[in-house]
């Protein structure tokens, strides 16, 4: 067994197989909760525990997969560039709403994590929960969060956002397609965008535009919004 697992390729093959299984299960069940990534993570974790394999052993190969995240974030500039024309038509209202949404996201996380009495590290891990994963991971590292907690909170945010979207749109009585798209992309990143895709072209274009912009904005505002909200709550208490 050691000869099999103590090989760089082991972690890569295990991840590829788990993701394949995740895609298959997601396709068969068509349930949002069976998100391919979530299923794949679950399968790898269960496999490592069941076979009593050390996470360090898995990470020999895992780090090669992880390495692609940096360049993948850079590549996000391409879809953003393609959508710049759509942004130009309503640049000010769109950018203002995304900025507002990003501030609300960070502030509400600080508020609820403090309300629930969670530790500093956990607050930092949840701050980037509404932004796309490659940006969220880096922001979490920068702010002193725990990266795996960030990754899971981002996935849960995306899945729950996609599931809640129809109800939220109805309750908030949102009608404007651009507004709906921006709301989905800003609050639930790429997984929310899959829901926008079902709603229509305007919604999905605006949603995917919002992913990148919200990500960049959150990186810049998160430290300030955190300190401001934290300070306000501290004095209020």
């Amino acid at each position, binding site marked *: 067994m050691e000869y099999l697992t103590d090989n760089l390729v082991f972690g890569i093959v295990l*991840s590829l197989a788990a*993701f394949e299984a995740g895609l298959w299960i997601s396709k068969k069940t068509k349930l949002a909760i069976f998100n391919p*990534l979530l299923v*794949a*993570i679950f399968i790898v*974790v269960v496999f*490592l525990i069941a076979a009593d394999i050390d*996470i360090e052993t*898995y*990470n020999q190969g*895992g780090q090669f*997969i992880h390495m692609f*995240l*940096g*360049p*993948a*974030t*850079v*590549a996000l*500039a*391409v879809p*953003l*560039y393609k959508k710049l024309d759509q942004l130009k038509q309503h640049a000010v*209202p769109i950018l203002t*709403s995304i900025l507002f949404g990003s501030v*609300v*996201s960070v502030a*509400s996380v600080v508020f*609820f*994590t403090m309300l*629930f009495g*969670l530790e500093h590290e956990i607050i930092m891990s949840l701050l980037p*929960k509404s932004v796309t*994963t490659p*940006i969220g991971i*880096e922001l979490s*590292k920068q702010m002193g969060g725990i990266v*795996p*907690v960030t*990754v899971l909170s981002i996935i*849960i*945010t995306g899945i*729950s956002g996609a599931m809640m*979207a129809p109800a*939220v749109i109805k*309750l908030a009585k949102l009608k*404007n*397609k*651009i*507004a709906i798209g*921006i*709301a*989905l992309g*800003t*609050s*639930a990143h790429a997984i*929310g965008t899959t829901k926008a895709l079902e709603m229509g*072209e305007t919604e999905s274009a605006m949603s995917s535009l919002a992913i*990148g912009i919200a990500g960049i904005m959150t990186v810049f505002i998160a*430290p300030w919004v955190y300190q401001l909200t934290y300070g306000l709550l501290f004095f209020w208490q």
Partner: protein
Amino acid sequence: MKLFRQAIIIFGIYLLGDWISKTLHWMVPGNIVGMLILLGLLYSKMLKLEQVEAMAGFLLDHLAFFFIPAGVGILSIYAGIQGIWLKLLLICVITTAITMTATGKMAEALLGRNNRQGE
């Protein structure tokens, strides 16, 4: 070989962005600096879309896969969050609903309720 050639550009920009971020001790992560550099190069037409599109497409089409190791890391910290996972779940759901509502309401206030374009 097209992918390899495009990989040089995208991976190279990432390296440059990371180097800038670390050298200048910025709060902005290197991958975001790299993303802004690529956006600037595309916008100023110094780089053509065709020169990076294939590799960017490959990376973004498989984006979810690249997060598996980061998520599996939960194994090493599971003990720490065992008692609070329900709170974490609740916070994620509540704040997402709040953010979605706030963003949508703000956008509608600024854009108006009716949307005639984009069909």
